[in-house]
């Protein structure tokens, strides 16, 4: 399988790898996938008092496309509101990275990870469904 140059770039120079303090009340953690399926993503967001995602970090176990999807989506959500981040669709990620059909699930996982992180943050601050979902 050949990879698009964008996938290779994110794989070789991943943005925002790392962890945030999951006990911090401003931090939401999304954990999706399963080792048995070959993909696990941990994506964390740090939300400021204006509801803006001021930082995002990820760690991913998976193929190059999974790593690239999570790297890209952390880039995209930084500086966005929760609502804007929630609205990012996997198809945008897949299109940007030129993922082949067999790798679409990687982009779905990245979208799920963002949504899971937002849900975790909202549960923490006691404001479920803040995005109107």
């Amino acid at each position: 399988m050949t990879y698009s140059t964008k996938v290779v770039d994110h794989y070789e120079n991943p943005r925002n790898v790392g962890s945030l303090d999951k006990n911090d009340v401003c931090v939401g953690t999304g954990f999706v996938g399963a080792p048995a399926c070959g993909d696990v993503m941990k994506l964390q967001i740090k939300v400021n008092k204006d509801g803006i995602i001021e930082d995002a970090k990820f760690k991913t176990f998976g193929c190059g496309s999974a790593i690239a999807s999570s790297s890209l989506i952390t880039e995209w959500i930084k500086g966005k509101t929760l609502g804007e981040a929630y609205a990012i669709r996997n198809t945008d990620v897949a299109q940007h990275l030129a993922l082949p059909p067999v790798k679409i699930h990687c982009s779905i996982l990245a979208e799920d990870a963002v949504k899971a992180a937002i849900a975790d943050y909202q549960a923490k601050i006691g404001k479920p469904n803040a995005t109107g979902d």
Partner: protein
Amino acid sequence: MTSRQIYLDYQATTPCDPRVVEKMFPYFTLNFGNPHSRNHPHGWTAEEAVEKARKQIAFLIGADPREIIFTSGATESNNLALKGVSTFYKTQKTHIVTCATEHKCVLDTCRHLEQEGFSVTYLPVQSSGLIDLNDLQKAIGPETVLVSIMAVNNEIGVIQPLDEIGKICRKAGVFFHTDAAQAVGKIPLDVESMNIDLLSISGHKIYGPKGIGALYVRRKPRVRLQALINGGGQERGMRSGTLPTPLCVGLGEACAIAKEEMMDEARNLKVLSDHLYEGITSRLKDVYLNGAGAPRIPGNLNLSFAYVEGEGLMMGIKDLSVSSGSACTSSSLEPSYVLRALGVEEELSHTSIRFGLGRFTTQADVDIAIERVVTEVNRLREMSPLWEMAQEGIDLKSIQWSEH
């Protein structure tokens, strides 16, 4: 592909040995005759070359040249052995025994035979990758016509106990076929002492050309089979079609070289693969050898790198041509059925890489491979949430994962 690309996938295929190619050349142009043309020198020259090749192949496995049938490769040989024998004897016996870790071409042929009304027993393997001889003994019944167990596994390189399997089959009066595509030229094989009745050979796995293989078919006691390809009755009626003289010559020469150099080559490869294994495991923890505890060919190391996904790793070591048991390298999204049959947990099958070393692998290649693998596994582990959890002492098995 860059010129610094290092080939470590010798179980997928091997380059033709230049000595093989040299022997083949004259039979494309100068000696182009049809080996089946009986009435002129062009034909005789070609026939002589083909018969010499047949002898070279037979000599390598302790057979008589008349017992060697040329085919297009091991896939055809396996098809011919399984379908040919079971179809020929179907009015007497209709049961076949094989094992779960066979090559796809054996398993798929068995599935086909099941649809044709034959019954097939797929023996499980132990965690070493070897079958349990008691299971084999129990599986053989009065209806059994054929046992087909591979000599060396293509993914994990383990050697099945051919001597013992041969004894059991001979005693029970059933034919023993072995897919020896990965074994010929790598380990000593003797169809007499091992009681092998049919044996499949591939050209391109042993530094010969692609597109040629052979099937050994025992004459005494005689094994009969129904041809799959009908035509002019070449190869004693078992495989019609004009023999590709240059390819036959190439396979013959590859066998002759193997006979001569196998032992030295195995010794060298053992040194290199030990060096690779030590080099990696001394610098990385949580690396597991798949098929540990079984005798193995020295040119194969199948390793699982826990917490690092195999395809992701392959992308990082892209200047090494290796293969992965990870799901993502196939379109099926299923991890290797061989590793699953060994009882390797799915999460570990996703992390496996097969390193295949061979005749042209150098110490320098192995040194580069060690550096690349160690660097990349460390980098990816730093990026892996599973590694992070493991370092925090979290038992990954205690987590409720969201399977997707």
